[in-house]
């Protein structure tokens, strides 16, 4: 019996260049590798988790060009030229992202395994909220935003709360900015 090729580079790995958490990176990705494999096994960014590997749980959620998608279902070679954000890139300058802070303080992460994926879905929601004209924070909308991220520990209550608290900060900031620009307009 002839052995199948043991070498995953049997089909030549392709050089893929993309923005990863704001910085350019180039990897040699075997064509059948998904983004989660490249992140975890090649780039050692193990914050992105795997819970099912076929699109059923959301643990592997990352953002590609801003949109939360499943890294286990995304062929790595297809992120060429795009921007990828993972949980490791969430905070700025050593400061945790507001969501990381509220999740930690409010007990929204129990085992923490679903959390990186949750945070990526939630951060997209927060970014979107910041662009809205008259943003409001709504628990039903938050639940829908997190609808593709399974959590087995929390019953979601504290997760929705943590997202809502961070979202309210966004809304308040938007309101302050609006007031400030109003003031400026009056000057």
């Amino acid at each position, binding site marked *: 019996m002839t052995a199948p090729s043991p070498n995953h580079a049997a*089909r030549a790995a392709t050089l893929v260049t993309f923005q990863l958490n704001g910085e350019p990176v180039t990897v040699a990705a*075997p*064509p059948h590798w998904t983004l989660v494999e490249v992140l975890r096994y090649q780039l050692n960014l193990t914050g992105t988790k795997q819970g099912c590997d076929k699109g059923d749980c959301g643990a592997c959620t990352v953002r590609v060009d801003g949109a*939360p998608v499943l890294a286990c279902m995304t*062929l790595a070679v*297809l992120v060429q030229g795009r921007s990828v954000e993972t949980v490791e890139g969430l905070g700025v300058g050593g400061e945790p992202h507001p969501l990381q802070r509220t999740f930690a303080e409010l007990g929204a992460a129990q085992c923490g395994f679903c959390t990186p994926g949750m945070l990526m879905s939630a951060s997209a929601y927060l970014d979107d909220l910041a662009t809205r004209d008259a943003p409001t924070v709504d628990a039903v909308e938050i639940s829908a*935003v997190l*609808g593709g991220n399974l959590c087995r520990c929390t019953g979601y209550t504290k997760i929705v709360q943590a997202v809502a608290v961070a979202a309210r900060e966004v809304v308040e900031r938007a309101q302050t900015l609006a007031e400030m620009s109003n003031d400026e307009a009056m000057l």
Partner: protein
Amino acid sequence: MLRLPELEVVIADSLVAALTRLAEGRHVRALQGGTDLVANLKTGQTKAQTVVALGPLSELHGIDTSGEMVRIGAGERLVDVAQNAELQELFPALTYALARIASPQIRNAGTLGGNLCLDTRCRFINQSDLWREAMGGCLKSHGHECHVIPGGGGCVAALSADSVPVLMVLGAEVEIARLQDGAVLLRRTRVADLYDTDGLRHVRIADGELLTAVLVPKLPEGARAVYRKWAVRQSIDFPLVSTAVRLDLDRDGKLKQGKVAVGVLGPRPRLIPLDRWVGRPIDETLAQQVAAQVFDRCHPLPNVLYDHEYRRERLRVEVLRAIRTWFTPTAAAN
């Protein structure tokens, strides 16, 4: 963990190039968002040597609502179609249906064309290699018998695409491209005619063909459609009951024409015209009669993972509730 088998990935740089590769046969597959194909390749139920990624093809993009037929590129992401304000205005049932597909992440990657071409689903095929090996396979894998209808004629795995029933009642068409003598040739077919009864290959698109766009005629005055989906969970799940109802009313509020489309039966959705009720007012009696008719004509099978007798009863109720939205203002419409 589950890994993909080795694959050649071709990133198509032109429609011609894509069609050329797709013409090689079934071992070459078109890849849009990958949310269905990648999972099926990982579990080994779909075998392919090459996938042709269509992402960059401009021919597959764009939403154009200017004409009488609205054109939606097959490569448009589900989220973009679902959130398109004009489409929400024109076809709320369609955007509602798309917004209920799977999960936000999957709608961010998956495309309209991908949903239309979603592989059929069955609890005997959407399983691991080991599972299918243990059961001895079935017609859709390496076996010789269907376990849903043993001794039956073929594979009856379920069409599970949320978009299909709505597009059927809307009278939508799809545009399909292929190559002839090096030139791209387009043909059009009604969504209602797109599907076959063979669960192994239920989309009537030949090797070398590619679905490029969906064309939806604008609704005449007095016409409206409603989509109803039932699944155990509010998110992530494929539909277990999937039905769309369209009623066109005359100025007096009487039925001018109507139809019901039903998915998640076998490989082919069902379109049921409501001609018998033309001229009738839309009320509870009509709703009950139509629902009973749909119940009589549709037989969900034990193919997807839920009690099929309940699914049949539930289909009746969903049709009923869809029609009630015409005369009960509080009933949830889309």
